[in-house]
Every structure is written in structure tokens, then in C-alpha cells.
């Protein structure tokens, strides 16, 4: 049995979105079963199945390495404060 990650997309400009996973004996049956599991009520118009073993996984320790760099976050507060000061001194 293979595990596939399932992606759906509505017609138009929406992007493909991950909706879940499915177990199937092969890709052909994967598509058949995914249709019943995830598109029973017209939830999407296009379907992608990606074999989970084909997914490139970023090592978590490497991905989380940037959690301790608050200076890279921009919530807009610093800019708003700077603009407020500029207005007041203008």
C-alpha cells in the first residue's frame, strides 16, 4: 500500500491546497479512491496526488533555525512609530 498526499483546486485562479492523505495500492486506484474520499460533494475541480515518498522534506532542525531572529519579523509597529514621529516633527 502506498500513501499519497491529496491536493485539490477549484476552477479559476485558486491555488492547489492540501486536503489530506490517502492509502491506495497504486496511483490509479489512488485517484479513484481520492475522488470518493475528498471530492464527493464537488469540493474541487482538479486533483493532484503526490506519493509521500517523493516529497522532499526539510530537516526540522534546519527549518526551525530561524525561530530566534525576531529582528526579521516585521509587524509594522516600528514603521508606524517612525512615521508618527516624522509627522509630529514635520
Amino acid at each position: 500500500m502506498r500513501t499519497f498526499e491529496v491536493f485539490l483546486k477549484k476552477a479559476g485562479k485558486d491555488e492547489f491546497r492540501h486536503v489530506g492523505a490517502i492509502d491506495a495500492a497504486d496511483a490509479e486506484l489512488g485517484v479513484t479512491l481520492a475522488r470518493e474520499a475528498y471530492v464527493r460533494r464537488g469540493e474541487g475541480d482538479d486533483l493532484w496526488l503526490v506519493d509521500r515518498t517523493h516529497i522532499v522534506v526539510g530537516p526540522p532542525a534546519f527549518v526551525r533555525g530561524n525561530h530566534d531572529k525576531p529582528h526579521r519579523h516585521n509587524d509594522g509597529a516600528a514603521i508606524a512609530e517612525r512615521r508618527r514621529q516624522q509627522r509630529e516633527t514635520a
Partner: protein
Amino acid sequence: MIDLSPAAREHLLALADDEHMIGAQHATWIGVTPFLEEDLAFCSIAQDELGHALELYQLLTDDVDRFALLRDAADYRSCWFAERSTPEWSDALVRHWLYDHAERLRWQALAHSSVAEVAVLARLVDREESFHRQHADQLMRRLLTSGEARPIVIAALHRLLPIAVGIFDPVASERGAIDEGVVASSSADLAMSWRTTISQQLETLGVTIDWPVGTDEQRHRTVRDPGFAAFHDELREVISLDPGAVW
């Protein structure tokens, strides 16, 4: 309910009862198929078949619940193949495959029916049925090319074929339905096409079968399968609590 000749009525009743029984039999697998994904797909197919039965029953009666569930056994026109319980998953799957290929031919023979409502329905049903066949064909292909599953599926085929041929046991009034243009082909002609389709698919998978000779045990679908009474009781379990209840 629409006006139908006795011959048209009996012919459509046979298909309606087959769809009802096969849908109800498939539905007994809810929650117990080998894996979740298959559970969803198989029970979805069950739901489709029950939907087709409902559409046909609505042409035959104004009180579908009573008609579908509370008739005397002798008044049903389903075939044994649709009525029989299949405790083994392999049998349920092989039956699904054999039945859906037969069903395609039966609905196609109604696509230009003189009963306009039936012709419209036949075209609608075909869309759903193509999914059923895809599902069954893919599973059969996969299992018959797997060393472990192949002998199990072949054993199921040999068990089921003797009653599967009874799908094409015609109702007594079939000639009348053909003459009236209700259905385009005789059951005997459809059976020939079905055997060709099934044999060809099996040959590509290296399986040869000897077609069993049909019997007249069903007596033009007027006699029920030995297990029908128990299954019928199960189907009526809820409605029997209060047959007069309005839903």
C-alpha cells in the same frame, strides 16, 4: 408514479429490485471493508445503486418505502445474485465487478426506451456507473496480478459465476417489453455481450473460465434466493417498528 403497461412495469421492476438488493448488500460492508478508503468508495457505490432503485421505484409507485420493503417475497423480481449475502470481501468485490458490467448493458438497452422518463434516467445513471466500473476494473486488475490475492479472487469468481448468469434471467413478460420499445435488447443478447466483456478482461489477466449453464431455479425471477427471507427481515427492521410512521 407513471402509467406503464404490465410488461414495462415488470421489466423495470426487475432492474429496480436488483439495484435495491445490490445497493443494500453493498451497504452491509459499511465500516468493515479492508481499509477506510475502500469503505468510502464501496459504500458510495452502494448509495448510488440505492439511488437508482429509488428513481425506478418512483416510476412504479407513489409509496416507495412500503413498495420497496413491505411487498411479499414472491412479488419481488430481483435475481439471486443481487439478493445473496457475501460474507467474504473477495465475493463482494467480484460481485460488484460482474454486476456493474451487466448493469451497464441493461441501462444502455433502456437509453432509447419508449418510456421517456426511463430513457432520461438511463443516460443520467451511466455517468455514475462509469465510476463504478472504473473502481471495480482497477481493483480486479490489481488483485489478479498480485500473487497473494489472485487465487482468492479466482476462487470467488468460480463460486459466483453460477448465480451471476442469473442476472440475465428475463421476467416472463420480457417479449412484450421489447415489442413495446421499452427495452431495446433481449436478456439473452445482453448476456452474450456481458460474457464477451468479462471473458476478454479475464483473458488479458491470464484467467480462463468455463461459463456455467444457467438454471431455471429463479423461475423468471419469481422465486427468491434461499437467504432472502433473513435479508428481507433485516431490511424491514426499522420500518417494521412502526409501518404507519411518516418521515
